[in-house]
């Protein structure tokens, strides 16, 4: 079979798997968040932590819960990383220095999982599983909760209540993430991902060299790294590492896992707003962006333009033999279209065009299909913008799902859209301006600028993948990227919840002949184009100096 046929079949199989999971998982998630009954184990949980599961929160209280929970998460994780040498199974590694611990703690709480450290030479098993992996679950559940709160804002009328954050957080974790993670962790182990508590030990290789055999609770962390669109690898090489991703089957499973919740959430959305066509419209916009980018990345890598790939005869630098170019491009496109940021190949060594497209995926704001929860609320915010633009064209007050989009609502949307580019461009501009910060670059010229842009695009969008040539473990990058991650994650959540509160207060507007239908192909087109135009206008100058210049070199 030719590489092209095999590559296309692989994509087809992925789409089939996602299609099979779409309805059952989407419907299930809708039931989880609309059910009025608590499981026995959940009731016990609420009793122990003393929260009232029946309290219906205002948007501001819901927000305080999100922020309070995330703040203590950062603090506890920071403390754990600072003193990890005192924890069991620390493997003899020291505690992290303050800037690195700050960067890592914000990174995992903000669902980014940018890593300025290499796991195998920095972290013991307790810090990984009781610190990082816990946030892999919880940061995803927080994103999910905020998305659900926004949906409630659209579906509820004349109320100031959006639900209960603690209940949403607990149900998302206990009923959705944990069971799926448990099952697929075992599948990954069956495929070869390690899962043990053995400290690394040295063996003499067949050729007579010394090599350490690594261990660790890898599979249990690997699965939630993908399912929760986190992306922080147990090892430095992430999903390129054979102990995280041993073969082509686990590779396809990992791509499936990182896409499945963001994709199925479109169904959950349709079910919860009681108009499944709205969910399909959102899904279609996600699919258009994901598909177009996939074609571009794959074509760029297969054609391997550029000095080195041409000299080599293929774009194999930074790619594994077991994943060939197609499976690498599929992973790269999916990990940057979601907010995952795991990598099975090194994006820094991609062709100029291929690396540029995966960077653009992040700059679109992580909506194709985006992170767990964050993809959906990002997409809904952009749909509101699209409705507003259409309203401007015909001179009508725009509405979305029976809610008027007035001055207050669109102001929140505008701030949402500006928050991420602000964190991205300011951080990158400062980094590009000083000799000391430029000293971290591995490549020079446009590729060097791409390293900086990629880092801040990754941080501000909570992706976490890297053009890893950048030596980011410095005080400036650790601090600036940490702040970019916090701004990118939490200012947007503030705005989304404020928006949800404003929408819930409204009375429903009846649908009339003048209402713009938001489930037709015309709107899907408008929606997708809005995403591209917003990102294009914001980032074209920066992209032109970085990846576009590399691609044209």
């Amino acid at each position: 079979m030719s590489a092209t046929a095999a590559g296309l079949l692989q994509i087809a199989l992925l789409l089939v798997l996602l299609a099979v999971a779409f309805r059952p998982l989407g419907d299930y998630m809708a039931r989880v968040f609309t059910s009025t009954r608590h499981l026995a184990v959940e009731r016990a949980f609420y009793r122990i932590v003393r929260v009232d599961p029946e309290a219906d929160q205002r948007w501001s209280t819901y927000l305080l819960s999100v922020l309070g929970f995330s703040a203590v998460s950062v603090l506890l994780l920071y403390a754990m990383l600072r003193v990890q040498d005192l924890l069991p199974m620390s493997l003899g590694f020291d505690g992290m220095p303050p800037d690195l611990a700050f960067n890592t703690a914000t990174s995992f709480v903000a669902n980014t999982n940018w890593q300025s450290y290499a796991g195998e030479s920095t972290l013991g098993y307790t810090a990984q599983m009781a610190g990082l992996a816990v946030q892999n679950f919880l940061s995803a559940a927080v994103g999910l909760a905020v998305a659900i709160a926004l949906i409630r804002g659209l579906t509820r009328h004349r109320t100031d209540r959006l639900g209960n954050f603690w209940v949403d957080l607990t149900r998302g974790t206990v009923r959705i993430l944990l069971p799926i993670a448990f099952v697929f962790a075992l599948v990954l182990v069956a495929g070869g991902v390690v899962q043990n508590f053995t400290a690394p030990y040295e063996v003499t290789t067949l050729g007579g060299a010394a090599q350490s055999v690594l261990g660790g609770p890898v599979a249990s962390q690997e699965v939630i790294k993908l399912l929760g669109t986190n992306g922080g690898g147990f090892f430095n090489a992430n999903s390129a590492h054979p102990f995280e991703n041993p073969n082509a089957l686990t590779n396809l499973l990992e791509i499936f896992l990182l896409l499945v919740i963001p994709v199925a959430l479109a169904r959950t959305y349709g079910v919860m707003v009681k108009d499944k066509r709205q969910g399909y419209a959102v899904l279609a916009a996600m699919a258009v962006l994901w598909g177009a980018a996939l074609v571009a990345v794959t074509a760029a890598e297969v054609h391997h333009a550029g000095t080195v790939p041409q000299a080599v005869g293929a774009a194999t630098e930074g790619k594994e033999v077991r994943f060939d170019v197609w499976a690498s491009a599929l992973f790269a496109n999916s990990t940057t279209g979601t907010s995952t940021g795991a990598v099975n190949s090194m994006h820094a060594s991609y062709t100029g065009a291929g690396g540029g497209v995966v960077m653009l995926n992040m700059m679109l704001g992580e909506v194709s299909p985006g992170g767990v929860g964050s993809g959906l609320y990002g997409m809904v915010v952009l749909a509101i913008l699209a409705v507003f633009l259409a309203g401007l064209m015909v001179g009508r007050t725009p509405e979305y799902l029976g809610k008027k989009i007035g001055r207050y609502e669109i102001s929140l949307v505008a701030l949402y859209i500006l928050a991420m580019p602000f964190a991205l461009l300011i951080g990158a501009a400062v980094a590009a301006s000083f000799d000391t910060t430029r000293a971290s670059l591995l490549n020079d010229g446009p590729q060097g600028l791409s390293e900086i842009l990629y880092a801040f695009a990754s941080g501000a969008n909570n992706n976490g993948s890297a053009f890893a040539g950048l030596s980011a473990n410095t005080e400036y990058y650790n601090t600036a990227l940490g702040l970019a991650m916090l701004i990118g994650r939490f200012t947007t959540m503030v705005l989304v919840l404020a928006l949800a509160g404003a929408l819930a207060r409204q009375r429903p507007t009846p649908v009339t002949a003048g209402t713009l239908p938001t489930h037709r192909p015309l709107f899907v087109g408008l929606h997708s184009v809005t995403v591209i135009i917003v990102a294009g206008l914001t980032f074209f100058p920066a992209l032109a100096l970085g990846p576009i210049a590399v691609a044209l070199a």
Partner: protein
Amino acid sequence: MNLSGLIRQSWAGLRVLLLFTVILGVAYPLAVTGVSQLAFGDQADGSLVSHDGEVVGSSLIGQPFDGEQWFHPRPSVAGDGYDTLASGGSNLGPESTQLLATVEERRAAVAEENGVDPADVPPDAVTASGSGLDPHISPAYADIQVNRVARARGLDPAEVQRLVDEHTQGRTLGFLGGERVNVLELNLALEDLGSS
């Protein structure tokens, strides 16, 4: 929005976080480990392979092989090469002059060592993998090493080629991933051939 509200929510958040840390950070990984060790012990421990009763590594992790008598793996930039404590790729870009020079050097070396035309050296032989621990090479890279290995071991090249063919794995299920040869397993088979 008020400070006392935030403190109250944070305090509730801390209680929730601590209980979740016990469930997700301790009970869950222990449960996964327990079931994995029972059901898939070999994989969970790292798919170890032994030679003459000694563990020589993992079939999933590439190893350095120097010397004429071995099939050689891909170039690796993990530490000094296949250092599992420093996994990673070169991260050099497509226009990097440094990478271009390295690639040309490797091509010349591989061509000379195996006595083949530089144009016949396949891409994976001159590029480093993303992990630096790639256990595989392409069948093309294995093929050009056959004559050299056979000569060094005093074996019939046809016999070595047969081993390579036996160890060539097609795409998984016929269409997933790449065609490949596991270098450690191939070299182990060579050793067994020599000793029988």
